[in-house]
């Protein structure tokens, strides 16, 4: 029996959308208020979906405590209460939520307890992004 398990995590971070490939004016044009030089912040919600066979003994796809511990160490401790632009993963990429989704997918692809299906990130109540890998 294959089932899909989803868990939501929350972190708060600041960022600024600004591409070094654009001139100052073009950055303002493209990113609008998200280009504010002082940055701004969001409460991000990350929804991680993993899949696998339901273990006939435990009844679980994977142990949630393992997924939570992995998320705590690799997601929350790295991203919560940070400025995303200062993180190594955004040194050469704009900290859009699209790029954040790809980075978070890369992180959870390393979770050994189950197969990663999809990352869904809500930047605000009205914006959300999904990445399920390019394969």
């Amino acid at each position, binding site marked *: *029996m*294959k*089932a*899909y*398990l*989803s*868990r*939501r*995590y929350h972190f708060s971070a600041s960022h600024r959308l600004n591409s070094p490939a654009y001139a100052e004016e073009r950055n303002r044009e493209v990113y609008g208020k998200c280009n504010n030089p002082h940055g701004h912040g969001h409460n991000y919600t990350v929804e991680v*979906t993993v899949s696998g*066979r*339901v273990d*006939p*003994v*435990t*009844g*679980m*796809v994977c*142990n*949630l*405590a393992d997924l939570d511990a992995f998320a705590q160490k690799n997601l929350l401790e790295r991203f919560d209460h940070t400025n995303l632009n200062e993180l190594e993963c955004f040194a050469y990429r704009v900290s859009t939520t699209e790029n954040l989704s790809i980075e978070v997918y890369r992180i959870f692809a390393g979770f050994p307890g189950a197969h990663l299906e999809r990352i869904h990130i809500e930047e605000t109540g009205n914006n959300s992004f999904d990445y399920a890998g390019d394969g």
Partner: protein
Amino acid sequence: MIFLTRKAEFSSAHFYWVDDWSEDENLKVFGKCANRNGHGHNYTVEVTVAGEVDPVSGFVVDLKQLKDILEHEVIRVYDHRHLNLEVPEFRESIPTTENIAIAIWNRLADKIPNARLHRVRVYEMPDLFADFYGEQE
């Protein structure tokens, strides 16, 4: 093809325990969920059916009928019950969110008239849910 989803809620008690394991082993794997006095949740189930829109009624399925089936097959059996002790399918399997999704699928799969059951999603809490699409493997 249109996908139609109906939600319903039930409140139940459960605990996680494997009889063949020692108490230590159960506590190690299931943590506070292994408390044999049980604990409870407000569950939300979302049932998604897939089908074609009837050109006359404009419906995929009659929502009232879907609500009644869900009530009769699932809510009546699960709501305000202890899942481990009072629901037959959990005598043999642990009522994890995954197994609850599978059990609800099995209760509904051949009961939906004019549409195919597409997905059962069970929320144990707003930040945790399991999906089952009927995939055997």
